[in-house]
């Protein structure tokens, strides 16, 4: 819609690279804001990107116990699905269900990454990935509630609806809150980040370092960007249309996320599931009331 209708490979590739750099900067900003809230100077904003590049040229060692080629392939799958999401979402304005699928595959990849290395810590992380999926999947179904309002799940259609009828954020505030919780659960240091909690070393990421960690971090950056984009498009599509407005909105939401992450402790796994379910139920109540 708001993007030039020019589907050549260079254009899409540039979009993905832009998403990667901007998403990396956003995650850097996230760390910076968190540090300032906690009274630390914090790393520079480019730190997250530098971190990714640093890992990208570090030596890769694959554990003897790992399950090959799953150990490598599953990380690449994580990148692949978010590239698909970035093509379907911002460029084609396609079906939101495909992005739901990407999110589901991201959960599967988290689980697989944890299982493939054979380490007990990653195994714990992957077990928690299954546990948290039970809470996050109802949440991701919540935007399907948007369908009852707009009669379409195509992102272009949702944007059109909002241009005509005003943004969905004012009409379905609790559904927006539920989606926001979903974005929050994918933010680093989030209260719902039980999957990579430091109580289990680094959760499913424990055994992945070197090149493969760099590739994984790229996937996570793309995921963060794609989820933010979806949130803004689905709930603020009527107001925010220009790329610059998108950038400002993403920065704003990242700052809010950073405040939440800095001020809340990580909750226990069962509590995480319970709290997320409460938000999912609230969203359903919102739809039923209308």
């Amino acid at each position, binding site marked *: 819609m708001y993007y030039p209708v020019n589907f050549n490979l260079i254009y899409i590739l540039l979009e993905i690279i832009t998403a990667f750099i901007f998403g990396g900067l956003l995650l850097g900003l996230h760390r910076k804001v968190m540090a300032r809230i906690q009274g630390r100077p914090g790393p520079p904003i480019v730190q997250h990107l530098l971190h990714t590049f640093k890992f990208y040229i570090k030596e890769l060692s694959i554990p*003897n*116990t*790992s*399950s*090959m*080629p*799953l150990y490598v*392939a*599953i990380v690449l*799958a994580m990148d692949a*699905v978010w590239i*698909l999401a970035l093509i*379907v979402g911002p460029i084609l304005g*396609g*079906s939101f*269900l*495909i992005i*739901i*699928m990407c999110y*589901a*595959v991201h*959960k*599967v990849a988290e*689980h*697989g990454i944890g*299982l*493939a*290395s*054979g380490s*007990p810590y990653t195994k714990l992380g*992957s*077990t928690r990935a*299954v*546990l948290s*999926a*039970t*809470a996050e*999947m*109802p949440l991701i*179904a919540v935007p*399907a509630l948007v*369908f*009852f309002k707009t*009669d*379409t*799940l*195509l992102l272009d*259609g949702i944007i059109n609806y909002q241009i005509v009828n005003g943004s969905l954020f004012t009409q379905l505030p609790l559904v927006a809150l539920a989606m926001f919780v979903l974005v929050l659960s994918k933010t680093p240091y989030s209260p719902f980040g039980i999957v990579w909690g430091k109580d289990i070393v680094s959760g499913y990421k424990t055994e992945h370092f070197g090149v493969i960690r760099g590739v994984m971090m790229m996937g996570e950056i793309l995921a963060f960007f794609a989820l933010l984009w979806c949130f803004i498009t689905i709930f603020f599509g009527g107001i925010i249309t220009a790329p610059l407005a998108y950038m400002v909105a993403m920065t704003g939401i990242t700052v809010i996320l950073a405040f939440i992450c800095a001020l809340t402790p990580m909750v226990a796994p069962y509590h995480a599931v319970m709290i997320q379910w409460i938000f999912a139920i609230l969203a359903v109540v919102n739809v039923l009331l209308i």
Partner: protein
Amino acid sequence: MEERNLTIDLDLFDNIYRNLSVIWCIKMNDIVDINGLIIGHFPFVDIVPYITPFSLALVATIVTFTVFLAISNPEYRSITRFKEDVVRKETVEKKEARFRRFMTILCGVALIGVVTTGDIFNFALFVSLTGISNIGIFAGIKDTHVLDAAFQYGLVLMICSLPLFGGVALILANTGTLSLGVLGNLPSNQIINVGRTLLLIGAVGEGALAPFFATKVEMIRAKGAPFINMMHLSSLMVFTRIIELLLILG
């Protein structure tokens, strides 16, 4: 007794067929609104499998995952015991791995059926097949905790096949069709809503999703990364598909 005329009225058949084709070509509003453009469909009279970008993406994902999970070796687990000065590596036995690998591939095939079918009865069948193959993945493990959990999952599976097929039967009885393309154009009523709810309960139980997940977390303690990962993939793919299906029915 009077002899009954058993010849098929070919004209009528042709008419129905043509009408259905017209319905498929022109008004697939719900499916188009949810999935995007319909790239192609196979008009088998009433039961019409269709290809949309959504189902293509799902099929591509499932095929890739199935291939990679099928060729992966199971992981090793290092085990140290108190008072023993050795680290032992344990993995899945070859014979067991072979059976579980077969079940993984079967689950992948069933999943492809789940995501491509354009007919709710076939959907129910394929979903129960994924459930059965999931049980198969865990049946060969020699671990009491896992087997206990798998047994309980099996119970949920059997109980949930009733609402699953019951929902389909209700929808069929009410509308006279199982085809999603036709159902997508029919207005929803109370009975269809009950059928949808039953279908949701059934699919959630078969896929070991939200309220029924308790045994699943216990089950995935087992060894054999690629096989266990398939189970998680199957439940999430069933979940993604059931959202689409329920929205089309509505």
